[in-house]
């Protein structure tokens, strides 16, 4: 990973580094997207219509300073240093956003603005699990036939996020009395959302969530393990089964789930939360990179409480949560 290189880390301090999803920026109608296109249309893919992925350097008002799409550290450093030289040659007036555009950018609403500060935020990590010896040999044989650049899929992992507003986070708790040993089902809407959108095969790339009709099992039983004045400790056990038969992209995702959580009664928030789903996937979708690996194979998903300093990136499926925006200005 190029960005772990110390030279690039040090050089990045001379910029304001930001990361974002490119499709919306490339195709969206709002001012943020228009500002992106001011410089991306002069960048490395200006001749191509399909994508604008890559690394860009620009002035705040959208003047192009440099771009490249590579993981090569030397190439990246060359582009960043070249961009800095161009920046130095510009006057402050040539760099800065006009007042009206700054206001327009500041007032934009995005799903990221709906980050549930007082709710529950989970980091969702997904990776293939070790296969049987024979299956692993077959997988490695396929890898050997691939060009070197395409072999990144061995060891691939991905990450998404799951957000719960405060009232949704509270649904993980027992309703009514809290007694040690009490068992109860976690409400179906909460579990189904996790199963449809987070127990999916995105190891190698983005994939679609499952439709409600694809869900054959979405269950979590919670148990109160301990209670004191300050906290409630819970454990979870359950499973999921989503199946798409026929169509362009038949696939399945079947797991058993275990987990635990601690609720701080005074702060009214979870201070620990983890679910681990272990199971088997099969099939593929259009963009998830499984074209050479559609057979059933083991997969694991860890959903854990996001760290305090974790990036506030909206979940891929946030627009399907059924949330009414609250932060829209």
């Amino acid at each position: 990973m190029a960005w772990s290189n110390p030279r690039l880390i040090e050089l990045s301090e001379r910029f304001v580094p930001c990361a974002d999803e490119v499709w919306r920026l490339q195709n969206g109608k709002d001012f943020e997207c228009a500002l992106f296109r001011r410089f991306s249309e002069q960048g490395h893919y200006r001749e191509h219509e399909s994508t604008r992925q890559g690394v860009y350097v620009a002035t705040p008002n959208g003047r192009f300073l440099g771009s490249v799409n590579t993981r090569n550290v030397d190439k990246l450093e060359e582009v960043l240093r070249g961009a800095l030289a161009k920046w130095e040659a510009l006057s402050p007036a040539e760099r800065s956003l006009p007042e009206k555009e700054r206001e327009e950018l500041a007032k934009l609403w995005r799903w990221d603005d709906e980050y549930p500060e007082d709710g529950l935020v989970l980091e969702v990590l997904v990776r293939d699990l070790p296969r049987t010896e024979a299956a692993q040999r077959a997988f490695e044989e396929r890898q050997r036939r691939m060009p070197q650049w395409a072999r990144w899929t061995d060891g691939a992992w991905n990450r998404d996020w799951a957000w719960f507003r405060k009232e949704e986070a509270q649904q993980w708790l027992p309703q009514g009395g809290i007694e040690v040993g009490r068992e109860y089902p976690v409400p179906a809407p909460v579990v189904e959302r996790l199963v449809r959108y987070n127990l999916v095969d995105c190891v190698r790339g983005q994939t679609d969530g499952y439709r409600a009709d694809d869900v054959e099992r979405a269950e979590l039983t919670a148990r109160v393990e301990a209670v004191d004045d300050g906290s409630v400790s819970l454990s979870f056990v359950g499973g999921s089964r989503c199946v798409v038969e026929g169509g362009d992209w038949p696939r399945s995702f079947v797991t058993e789930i275990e987990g635990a959580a601690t609720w701080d009664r005074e702060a009214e928030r979870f201070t620990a939360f983890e679910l681990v789903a272990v199971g088997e996937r099969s099939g593929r979708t259009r963009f998830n990179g499984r074209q050479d690996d559609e057979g059933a194979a083991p997969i694991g998903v860890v959903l854990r409480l996001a760290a305090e300093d974790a990036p506030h990136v909206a979940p891929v499926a946030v627009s399907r949560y059924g949330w009414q925006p609250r932060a829209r200005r």
Partner: protein
Amino acid sequence: MNRFAPLVAPLLMTLWVAFAVSPCGAQESTSCAEAREFVVPDLDELAAETIPWRTTFRQGALEADALDRPVLLWAMNGHPLGCT
């Protein structure tokens, strides 16, 4: 110096490791624990996040404007700090 200190420190470290790892469940299964170990990325795999990436281009552009610095934008199909 406390003569037990060399013994206590490793014991505390062991206990810290045991309890710092959140339990999978009340009676966690082996496969659950092994899966967690396997799935969670190590520090090398998260090293790109040493750089304090702002999570939207909007945020980056506004802050760059305020600080009079160029914007460095890493843009991918799927958010680079989320699901790519």
